[in-house]
């Protein structure tokens, strides 16, 4: 395994014995976050959501994934939008998927 095993650590956890992706508790939420949210809300420059939150609330509170925001708050912002953030419709992700997204957003950081 050696070096490859170390580098591939995260991958090895997620991939089951027969090569299938094992469903972990946050998988769906993580994927929704990656596809729909991360481009604006990941840490670092070039992410408009993070930039906005940094200017309103300070850098420490600028990354939504680290904030454990209240579930109702996330739900409202997602469906109504906030400032420059346009809302997401149920046809993009439905309420059940939104619950998964919220679960992931509120989970402790790995």
């Amino acid at each position, binding site marked *: 395994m050696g070096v490859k095993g170390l580098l591939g650590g995260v991958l090895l956890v997620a991939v089951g014995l027969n090569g299938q992706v094992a469903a972990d508790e946050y998988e769906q939420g993580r994927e929704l976050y990656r596809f729909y949210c991360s481009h604006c809300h990941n840490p670092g420059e070039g992410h*408009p959501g993070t930039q906005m939150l940094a*200017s309103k609330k300070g850098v420490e509170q600028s990354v939504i994934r680290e904030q454990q925001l209240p579930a109702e708050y996330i739900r409202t912002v997602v469906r109504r939008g906030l*400032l420059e953030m346009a*809302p*997401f*419709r*149920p*046809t993009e992700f439905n309420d059940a998927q939104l619950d998964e997204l919220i679960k992931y957003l509120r989970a402790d950081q790995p």
Partner: protein
Amino acid sequence: MNNRPLPDGLSEADLLGGLARMAEVVGKKWVILEPEAGLTAYYDTQSTLPISASMPSGAVAPANTDELQKVVKIANEIGIPLWTISCGKNIGYGGPAPRKPGTLVLDLKRMNRILEVNVESAYVVVEPGVSYLQLYEHLQKNNIPLWIDCAAPAWGSVLGNAMERGGGYTPYGDHWMMQCGLEVVLADGTLFRTGMGAMENSNTWNLFKYGYGPYIDGIFTQSNFGIATKMGVWLMPEPPGVKPYMITFPREEDLHQIIEIMRPLKVPGVMQNAAVLSNLIWEGAISTTRDRYYRGDGPMPESARQKMAADLELGAWNMTSSLYGPPAVIDTLWQVIEESFSQVKGARIYLADDRAGDPGWEYRKKLMRGQPNMTEFSLLNWTGGGHVDFSPVAPMTGDEAMNLFNICQSNAHEFGFDYVAEFFGGWRQMVQVFMLLFDPEDADQRERANQLFSVLIREAAANGYGEYRTNLSFMDEVAATYDFNDGALWKVHQKIKRALDPKGILAPGKQGIWPL
């Protein structure tokens, strides 16, 4: 419930009766009627007018063409107007909201299949709900060496943006030009294919645009004559080399010389993709915020702008473009480009690895390779999210550029707003996108922005500039500026409308075309 705006001539019972029948087709949860069920996500919160000015009565979301046809037939029978959206991210022009309150949004986001990827001939066939990001990831995952061309926001629709005749940043950036083959559903539910697709067993639907007989694809763009359900889109094969470059120019009045240099490079194709020339605040807003330089009301003063330009190593104008092809071709073309723009005094050239860590340059480089991202939304942070885009077209000459720039900047300043804009050098024309940014929570700013926009439409028209696209709130005003021979073209549009959609159920008011 009681606040629901209704379509003209329909009672709430009529509407709900029709929606109940639609629910039998699409499933109950795909008829969205209540704010708590997600209808709020169909509102336009960023315009100069209140939400009520474009509030839909509800939304319906078919999963496939068959369901769509059934929904349209029900709507036509009862007289329920439908506003078609694909990904619904037409932000700056109205988002997913309809022109007229009470219109039912026909949301095609669930129709999101990539139907064909043809590697050999480099095209895809997509449904309306396919976003740039989705298509990009599909090609990447499958190691397909084709590039997409995306608009700046990753979540936009490949089909929807082309229907608006939007643009991107690779040599395939004129999205409607790269469209080939359309499937359309009309207001009575009729389904047909354009071009070669009109032949039952055609094998060139997505290879040859024009077919046989009248070429009608274009009349379905920026219109309300039909609903596109499938589109062929040409993709650019990954080129053997790419050389993105950025050139900054120090003074506002350099605009004249820059455009005079640009035209003879654009017309014969020495510059291969859009030559994007953004002003200081546009480029700077990606990496900084307004309050770092100015906390007062009104436009940012010259001194603050100078400071920002120095800190961020930006010019009054900043051009980003790229070369593509075999390295030898790139080298040859680059010599011409470098020599030409270096004539502008104080021009500074930056290549791929320069400007490390500048998010503005990073996202430009991505867009010029068709890699979707969301970075440009940072611009909207400048004032808090409210914005409408003013997008007039002008001849690509120095005089016209200066004139258009002066009209927009002086009016913007007079009304108390920053001038935040980008010139897109096309083939012979250029489009200036002035992002009129305002604080949507501030009623006075909203009102001033609304007035400013109308002033700009009028002054631009008086100078011969018409908008290529506009926000919901200004569709009639812009249509009225297309006034040759007493508005003859819009009368033709009305005739086509009457023939294809006699009950006027599709997108009433889109681009100033109304049912009779």
